[in-house]
């Protein structure tokens, strides 16, 4: 009895690993193919198509990457992308955390109304307002300039909500004590609350970085100049530009994913927590 149970437990464990390995390999195979193809000459990609060799970087070289860098102005593209995201994030973290803190810890007239506004606007899809927003940008003379990518996306209802949730848990005694020591309400926030709230800042940072790094539609609408392109626009246009080389396209895809992978390696904990906490609290 116990022997067969032991055996079935072992067998179950084996099946569990086996299942995970098979499903895991199927799951990542498109990405492995992308990386392997990015390292091969195009003719070799086609030649290997009908065998498992298609997943292996045979005759590997960085020629495809050289082609991407010579055809796309990658330093410029990266600069455009990181600059706009960096600017959004600086203001995003500042403005939304201040708002979230006020909603969590201060009493003032209109607080309930602002909280309702934030929650109501959370479901507002960007796609429903992109037409007038575009007109607004063009009236401000911002089309094809940095402010069009940055200014409309500083205030974020979801960020405000995340900050508020976090600051609600900061003990009132801490804030009282600072006030008794003569700290002003703003001073207490910046000198005492912010330094102990690194987790929530890191979480909002990584969630919003990813969202903007991946954003395609809005940059596509407002940034039409070739030298203004963000990374997603560069990748998308490269896909349609002659000569279409699969090998170089795959290299471009890999290049565009590298910053995300680096971010993930360093901020995995906050990223995963951010995703998970949205589910628990929402």
């Amino acid at each position, binding site marked *: 009895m116990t022997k067969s149970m032991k055996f079935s437990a072992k067998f179950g464990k084996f099946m569990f690993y086996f299942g995970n390995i098979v499903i895991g390999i199927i799951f990542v195979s498109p990405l492995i193919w992308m990386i392997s193809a990015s390292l091969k000459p195009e003719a070799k990609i086609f030649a290997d198509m009908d065998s498992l060799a298609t997943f292996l970087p045979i005759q590997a070289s960085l020629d495809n990457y050289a082609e991407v860098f010579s055809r796309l102005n990658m330093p410029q593209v990266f600069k455009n992308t990181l600059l706009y995201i960096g600017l959004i994030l600086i203001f995003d973290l500042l403005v939304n955390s201040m708002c979230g803190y006020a909603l969590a810890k201060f009493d003032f007239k209109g607080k309930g109304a602002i909280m309702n506004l934030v929650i109501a606007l959370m479901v507002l899809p960007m796609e429903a307002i992109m037409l007038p927003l575009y007109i607004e940008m063009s009236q401000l003379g911002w089309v094809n300039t940095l402010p069009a990518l940055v200014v409309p996306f500083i205030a974020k209802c979801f960020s405000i909500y995340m900050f508020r949730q976090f600051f609600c848990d900061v003990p009132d005694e801490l804030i009282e004590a600072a006030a008794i020591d003569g700290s002003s309400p703003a001073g207490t926030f910046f000198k005492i609350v912010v330094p102990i709230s690194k987790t929530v800042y890191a979480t909002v940072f990584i969630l919003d970085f990813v969202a903007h790094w991946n954003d395609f539609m809005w940059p596509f609408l407002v940034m039409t100049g070739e030298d203004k392109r963000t990374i997603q626009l560069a990748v998308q246009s490269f*896909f349609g530009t002659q000569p279409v080389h699969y090998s170089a396209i795959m290299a471009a895809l890999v290049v565009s994913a590298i910053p995300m992978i680096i971010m993930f390696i360093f901020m995995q904990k906050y990223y995963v927590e951010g995703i998970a906490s949205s589910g628990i609290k929402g």
Partner: protein
Amino acid sequence: MAKTKKLTGRKRDERITAYMFVAPAVILLIAFLVVPMIYTVYFSGFKYQIMRPDAIKFIGLENYQKLFSDKNFWIALKNTVYFTVLVVPIQCALALGLALLVSKKFRGVSIFRTMYFSPQLTSMVVIAVLWSVLYNANPNTGLINSLLVSLGMEPIKFLSDADTAMNSIIFMSAWQGAGYQMMIFLAGLQGIPKDQYEAAAVDGATKFKQFLYITLPGLKGTIKYVVMITMIQAMKLFTQPYIMTQGGPKNSTKTLVYYIYTQGFQKGNFGYACSIAAVFFVIVVTLSMAMKKVTAATD
């Protein structure tokens, strides 16, 4: 109680600080979310050609009348609903299945978690370009068809056939998105007390019964949340058809957001596009309110 009437110095300080703290965010939200939203509704009452801003004319509900008799609008709505109705259960079930595979601590669990999450590390643009290549109809240049042929099957015209194009996008989207929902499910699974499983195991309940009577009820809230965010995201489908099929073949992948883009930005029918956007907005908000109601009613 006289104290409450007259603000103390500190209370007044706090109130001033509060207004200074909320003002930037609130001003930006109003300027770039509320105002455009109002203008979407406002412009939907006008005949407004982007090339002829001088010829703008109020036409009341005419755009909406035109919309409801516009064959392309109904096609776009049908495609959007079709995508949503299929992708939501597939992606959520896949995410839940993956979460169950990696919910327990075992050697290498973080490697498997990262594997399932990895499609999320690339953008939808990257995924759409990659899969356009994988889905290529020619078995000599498309990986999936090459595989099908070597297994002795007929190649499929994935993206170039009106019958399979949307399904191909659904399959790819579920693959790309499932890792995100998996992470939410993992957090939900942590919240189910372990002793419930132990008690059930002592009573001789099979794994399947444990799943049915402990895991699923324990995840009720999480499932509702995941279904809601996946549904709203699905309604916004644009990037995949724009890159992979340009709405074709035969309009089979043209979605509501795609139609807003085509009418507003390509054809310059700005007022008309705003009426589509307004309808789109009403649909999304109604859906999320309905989901919230359902969640509140059953909790």
